[in-house]
């Protein structure tokens, strides 16, 4: 906004009046009043025991739940990303059977609720009481009891990971298809095989498009893990619910869980910002040496 007086051709100065944005002040005041009132209703609620929140926020079972939530999120995201790349490459394959199967996979896992998938994996023993891996026509092999393999933890990881893979495959496909076809032709002209072209030329460039949404996927995964409580995965939500079922302090424990989810999301958002800056401007060297961690967290000043 201009504060310097306006000087006309004859050298006479006339000051500029200040604009008062009355509408803005009014809107801000109303919004603040509503927000303050809502906050007061919760904070000063006589039925809410903040002492219990403080008591449970660092409770042993809550902390172990936080850790399990992080574990499940990281493992399920990793599974989803790796499988997603494979499904995307299958989807783009010339082989109609492979690409058809990939299309079916994506449709199936996007078409069923993740809650249903979690419960399905957890109860896999109803269909297959035993899991057998053996060389055909011989007696050589191993056998597991399905109920022991499909714990809350593994079914959570599988359910969330397989589900993410279906969504992520579409992101990867878009990324791969966004790389100019001329890059592929130049790679072939140099004598690269299709696989090498994909790994050395196309995927590193596709990563620029693929990487930023992965941050979002991970952040959303952190909270989706709360669904795991239906299969008792010992994650943050499961443990919080078990505590409130015992002491009936539902609201206090939901607040405790939310505080941790918000903290995890804040950290993940920070990392996502670094990731995006890293991949927005700089070239993608992820595929060629240097671990992911070294790339996201370079030596302090670098």
């Amino acid at each position, binding site marked *: 906004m201009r504060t310097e007086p306006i000087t006309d051709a004859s050298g006479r100065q006339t000051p500029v009046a200040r604009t008062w944005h009355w509408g803005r002040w009014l809107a801000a005041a109303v919004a603040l009043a509503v927000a303050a009132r809502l906050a007061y209703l919760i904070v000063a609620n006589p039925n809410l025991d903040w002492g219990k929140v403080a008591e449970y926020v660092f409770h042993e079972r809550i902390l172990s739940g936080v850790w399990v939530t992080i574990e499940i999120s990281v493992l399920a995201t990793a599974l989803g990303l790796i499988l997603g790349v494979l499904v995307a490459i299958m989807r783009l394959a010339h082989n109609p059977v492979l690409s058809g199967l990939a299309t079916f996979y994506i449709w199936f896992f996007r078409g069923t609720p993740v809650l249903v998938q979690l419960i399905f994996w957890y109860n896999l023993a109803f269909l297959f009481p035993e899991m057998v891996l053996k060389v055909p026509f011989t007696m050589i092999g191993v056998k597991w009891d399905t109920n022991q393999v499909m714990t809350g933890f593994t079914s959570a990881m599988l359910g969330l990971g397989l589900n993410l893979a279906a969504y992520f495959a579409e992101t990867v496909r878009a990324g791969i298809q966004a790389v100019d076809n001329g*890059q592929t032709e130049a*790679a*072939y*002209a*140099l004598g690269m095989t299709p696989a*090498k072209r994909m790994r050395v*030329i196309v995927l*590193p*460039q596709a990563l620029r498009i693929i990487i930023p949404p992965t941050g979002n996927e991970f952040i959303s995964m952190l909270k989706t893990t709360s669904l795991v409580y239906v299969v008792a995965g010992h994650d943050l939500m499961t443990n919080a619910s078990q505590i409130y079922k015992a002491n009936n302090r539902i609201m206090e424990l939901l607040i405790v869980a939310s505080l941790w989810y918000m903290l995890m999301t804040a950290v993940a958002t920070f990392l996502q910002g670094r990731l995006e800056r890293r991949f927005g401007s700089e070239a*993608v060297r992820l595929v060629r040496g240097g671990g992911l961690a070294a790339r996201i967290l370079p030596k302090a000043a670098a």
Partner: protein
Amino acid sequence: MNAPGEQPDKQVVRASGVRMSYGEVQVLNGVDLTVAAGEVSCVIGPSGSGKSTFLRCINGLEPVLGGSLRVLDQEVGHTLRGGRYHPWTPKEFAAFRRNIGMVFQRFNLFAHHSALENVACGPVHVLGTPADRARVLAMEHLERVGLADHAHKRPHQLSGGQQQRVAIARALAMNPALMLFDEPTSALDPELVDEVLEVMKGLAAEGMTMVVVTHEIAFAREVGDWLTFFADGVVVERGRPRELLANPSHERTRAFLSSVLHPKERQESQ
């Protein structure tokens, strides 16, 4: 360049009756053309005449669907075994293309690599040259095209002419027996055309076997050993550039030349 009349010792490219189509659209209708080692063969013709498609058939980027195309003593895309031709695997295509450099109209430099990495990329990932050695060699190739100072810039930081010179260095880094140029100056601003043509003239003078699809008639006249005129998917005529430009024997060629030649150039060539 071969002196006129000198007998070529080896045909690097020998096309006879090459046909190719995109679905129903016939693009090549029986192309006959030979390129001998050490020769510069320039190809001109109206757009849609199939000249770029033919060039892309030479290194197997487009499939030959009829006739025979022998390049570097191999039938492109097929190996004769037990009395039958067996289609190549992607690996066999890759091995074949190592010996053929290609320069594209739109440069197609690898966008995530610096100029130096672009040039070193082929030797490292295709030939298995150790990275240190490949970088030294890549630097030499960049010096050759006059871009040593720009080695660490990315393609988007270079002008079109510079990018095309990097692309030439990238192809040369594979020590190809044959270089293909697909309208290498058509995407360039006029003032950047000469720097690319100069590099190509240098290559020709060193005896590189080259097939150049181009609209640069002056370049074809000065550097080309042979000039081939394409139209409607066939070779209409082929001859020594000066003779063909001065006395085209087909009406089609005459019409094309008068439409592309600057009046001044037309005078010169007569």
